[in-house]
């Protein structure tokens, strides 16, 4: 099993991240049902291997952009669950001081350029961040996460083409979870693999089993080196499945029970656990990791629930960055 190059020690952190994401998302849904989360929240359940596998191939100076379904990306990128949960609960201690909520978590200090509630909204942003980094002489690579549905937005086309002609160090990661809200992906595109669309930009396109965290990490690592060598973008399609409804709000539109059952067999966490077991890791140790994840999320939730909401006066702050003219607090 040469995929486990350095033994199980390097796999356990991946397991931890995946477990944390799963536990986090379940908790968010509970909090939503308790009416403590406003608006909506889009669980990453079933797709954990993608964010974790991709981010495992990134370095500290790299960047990611994210989507409405962004919690997994944030956690895989190392954001603190407590401050994330605080944001989702609309607390001042949250990453966005309660202004962004579930769909807009941003943390420059983690190279997290921002989650985005607009489907396909960050394609161009990722290209610009990548190109800008090159101009600034940084050695950064940018990962742009997006869904299968987003691959039908015009922004996908424009951004991949622009990245191609600029040879920008950006990796487009299409999380094909088979569905866009209530609409099956196969009904809104006729191409077999979304990665085939790379042809249009003369860039590499690769499809990977998105529930196999090691496979994901492998293709990511290749794309990252390519990007760092100045050879430009890669399109990665990670085939997976969302094992939860589209969102905590829109619960009525889930896929068929058969489909769900089928994909449950491929649960990315179980897949990794199986590898660990096969490598001789004992049940007890796995249970420990599970428990750790649970207590981490419990602590995060507690922290968030105890944090205070932002005072109303803060609503008019942060509209503009400091500037001479803004000193007077002028908004219009």
């Amino acid at each position, binding site marked *: 099993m040469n995929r486990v190059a350095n033994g199980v020690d390097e796999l356990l952190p991946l397991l931890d991240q995946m477990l944390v994401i799963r536990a986090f998302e379940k908790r968010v849904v509970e909090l939503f049902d308790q009416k403590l*989360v*406003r*608006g*909506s929240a889009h669980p990453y359940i079933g797709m954990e291997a993608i964010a974790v596998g991709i981010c495992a191939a990134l370095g500290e100076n790299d960047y990611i952009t994210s989507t409405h379904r962004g919690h997994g990306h944030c956690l895989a990128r190392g954001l603190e669950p407590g401050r994330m949960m605080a*944001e989702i609960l*609309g*607390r001042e201690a949250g990453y*966005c001081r*309660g*202004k*962004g*909520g579930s*769909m*807009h978590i941003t943390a420059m200090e983690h190279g997290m350029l921002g989650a*985005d*509630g*607009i*489907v*396909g*909204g960050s394609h161009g942003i990722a290209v610009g961040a990548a190109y800008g980094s090159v101009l600034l002489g940084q050695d950064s690579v940018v990962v742009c996460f997006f869904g299968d*549905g*987003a691959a*039908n*937005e*015009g922004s996908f086309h424009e951004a991949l083409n622009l990245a191609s002609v600029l040879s920008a160090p950006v990796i487009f990661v299409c999380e094909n979870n088979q569905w*866009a*809200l*209530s*609409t099956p992906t196969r*009904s*809104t*595109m006729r191409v077999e693999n979304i990665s085939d669309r790379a042809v249009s930009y003369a860039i590499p396109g690769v499809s990977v089993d998105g529930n196999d965290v090691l496979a994901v990490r492998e293709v990511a690592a290749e794309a990252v080196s390519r990007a760092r060598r100045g050879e430009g973008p890669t399109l990665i399609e990670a085939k997976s499945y969302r094992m939860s409804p589209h969102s905590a709000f*829109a619960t*009525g*539109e889930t896929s068929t029970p058969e489909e769900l059952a089928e994909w449950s067999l491929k649960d990315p966490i179980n897949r990794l656990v199986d590898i660990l077991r096969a490598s001789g890791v004992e049940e007890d140790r796995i249970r420990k990791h599970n428990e750790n994840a649970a207590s981490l999320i419990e602590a995060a939730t507690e922290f968030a629930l105890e944090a205070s*909401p*932002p*005072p*109303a*006066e*803060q*609503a*008019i702050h942060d*509209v503009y960055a400091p500037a001479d003219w803004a000193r007077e607090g002028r*908004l*219009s």
Partner: protein
Amino acid sequence: MKTREITMAAALNEALHEEMARDESVFMIGEDIGRNGGLFKVSDGLQKRFGAARVVDSPISEAAISGAGVGAALVGCRPVVELQHFDFVTLAMDQIVNHAAKWRYMSGGNVRVPLVIRGPVANGVGLAAQHSQSLESWFVHVPGLVVIMPSNPYDAKGLLKAAIRDDNPVLMMEKRLLYTKSGPVPEEEYIVPIGVADVKRTGSDVTVVGISQGVNLALQAARQLEREGVDLEVIDPRTLKPLDIDTITDSVRKTGRLVVVSEGARAGGFASEVVARVLDTAYDALKAAPVRVTAADTPIPYAAPLERAVLPGLQDVLTAITAVMPNKTKVGSV
């Protein structure tokens, strides 16, 4: 006329059912509108009844479905395009502004574009800045468009039917929180004409022009102030473009006082337009400076206390009434 109480979502749904049954050239396209009946059930049951060809679950491609609406309208259809949230109109601006709105004019009257683009304005529910915008004033600024914002189920149904039958591109913005609010709707068929304001309450002291939710805030204020002897006239333009300015100025000539309530951002908002229009012909009738009640000039924040601070509420309307009635002591302290 027999009426029932139904929600605004149900009223809009009825309008779609009726118009699709009435006219085979009507079809719908949008995200999750068919199989799922729309995120807010406005298109419930339509795909089942009229088939997937006439109720199309589209790819997530707001520009293309809006453009397709223009093209289908040109050849004789009456498309209804749904934007899942109206904020996504930012992706369809070119098709709406440079195409739908201008095609007839640029052709010298050679074509018509009977197109409806509609969707929810989802402020007030914690969806944050990208899902909460009330952008009506942009479209009021685009010659060639018709712009509608209903405040209740009756108007919503009647106006959507009128919009579908109109030979011009119509944008209809529906406040999401009103979808679940009920109101009387006749069982018989009816149309609410485009371009006609509705005086929701007659009064003599202050003219309050409300847009969508602004109407409901104004009516709440009116009920409350009644007890204090302040008599509001509440006008619902319903159609923002063309605007029934005469109904508004007639009222201002009577009351001498004007408050405009709208949930769009303050700067460059539709409230400013109403004020400027009223001044054109009724300046002399004014007894006080008109007051605008609007959202603050910030993006819409997520957390509840912040969002509440930014969106206009009943108290803001009461404060505005006080401002235009300087001789009254502070009214409506709640």
